[in-house]
């Protein structure tokens, strides 16, 4: 049931999966890249330029069986190097939110997938999960449950700790927000190491909720976040390099 719909298939046929976010394709490769990477980058630049005509992309998407809305969603995401620290290529979804068609398509793809599946809970992880979760919840007739950093929720909460690179953090959910037996999806903009999503899964499972799927716009597969999710499937629209 896991399907990875990756825009990069348009630009590079064989694995390994590398970023083909069209915005990045137009950049000059950074001198931080190793020799291995720079060869791949050259190929990426060439084929991305060739694939930049909309009609070619649509045709490629259909042949691939890929949803034709994906390339526009992928190319609307801005990559910001060295944020929040050197070496990280930050996936900025705020530019997706400025593209009304891409944002609508993103929500539509999730809604089409989850409508009519008996899902009564859409849980969204603070803060970018709050942007994608509620429109999905409204469209499929589910509750929206925010999963928040400590001390933000005013009522009685349950919390779950998870590891950071240095130290730990917690996410919290209101007691009584969900009931045992409910079927839930968990939304965030991106899955990296999977720590936050894994904590969200644990929190919901502790109160007897069934996680139908985790859904993110972007996955950074090198960070192997998928492996932390246990039995919960992961659905994503776009994959990208972590650094």
């Amino acid at each position, binding site marked *: 049931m896991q399907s990875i719909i990756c825009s990069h298939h348009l630009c590079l046929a064989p694995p390994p999966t590398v970023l083909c976010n069209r915005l990045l394709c137009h950049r000059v490769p950074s001198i931080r890249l190793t020799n291995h990477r720079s060869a791949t980058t050259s190929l990426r630049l060439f084929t991305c330029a060739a694939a930049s005509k909309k009609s070619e992309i649509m045709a490629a998407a259909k042949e691939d069986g890929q949803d034709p809305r994906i390339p526009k969603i992928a190319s609307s995401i801005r990559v910001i190097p060295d944020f929040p620290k050197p070496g990280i290529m930050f996936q*900025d979804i705020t530019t997706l939110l400025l593209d009304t068609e891409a*944002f609508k398509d993103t929500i539509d793809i999730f809604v089409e997938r989850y409508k009519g599946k008996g899902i009564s809970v859409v849980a969204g992880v603070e803060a970018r999960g709050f942007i994608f979760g509620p429109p999905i919840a*409204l469209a499929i007739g589910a*509750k929206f449950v925010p999963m928040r950093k400590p001390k933000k929720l005013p009522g009685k909460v349950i919390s779950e700790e998870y590891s950071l690179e240095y130290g730990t953090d917690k996410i919290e959910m209101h007691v009584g927000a969900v009931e045992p037996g409910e079927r839930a999806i968990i939304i965030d903009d991106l899955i990296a190491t999977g720590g936050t999503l894994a904590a969200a899964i644990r929190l919901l499972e502790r109160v007897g909720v069934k996680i139908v799927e985790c859904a993110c716009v972007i996955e950074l597969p090198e960070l192997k976040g998928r492996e932390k999710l246990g039995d919960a499937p992961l659905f994503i629209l776009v994959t990208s390099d972590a650094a």
Partner: protein
Amino acid sequence: MFAAENGLKGDPRLEAISAAIRVVPNFPKKGIMFQDITTLLLDHKAFKHTIDIFVDRYKDMQISVVAGVEARGFMFGPSIALAIGAKFVPLRKPGKLPGKVISESYELEYGHDRLEMHVDAVEPLERVIIIDDLVATGGTLSAAISLMESQGAEVVECACVIGLPEVKGQHKLKGKPLYVLVEPSGLDEFC
């Protein structure tokens, strides 16, 4: 201005919205009756009414930007933006937005905070509405208005689900219209 005084008098949706909001006493500190909208988000019908009322109001006003104040503005703004065909622009606490930002400071009860926006998010002459869950003193919304105006955009209205008594009778905030759905819920509506 409150919705009930502005065309929605007696609208049963407003009562449903008000009833769905939970009051949590003494949060974040003693004496504050915190208006908790998470219970509104659990009530699909009432949440839908909330969005529908805002969408009906703004859909024919040529609004091209819906700006939402972190974090509870994010829970309402995007659904409105999608329904009226506008961009959604998050206004965030410092250090969260990855690109080049402009920022505006505003006063808290003790001290200051800052609100940030990406520099390329809005263009001059764009028509903007700014969304938050609740307006109290109006400090945050005023900072948001300043951010928009610094980019040459026009704030058409600020819109909140809940308006504290300080804003009743106040139709404008920093010269901009303010539209509010309900007054704070009382303790006896605690569910």
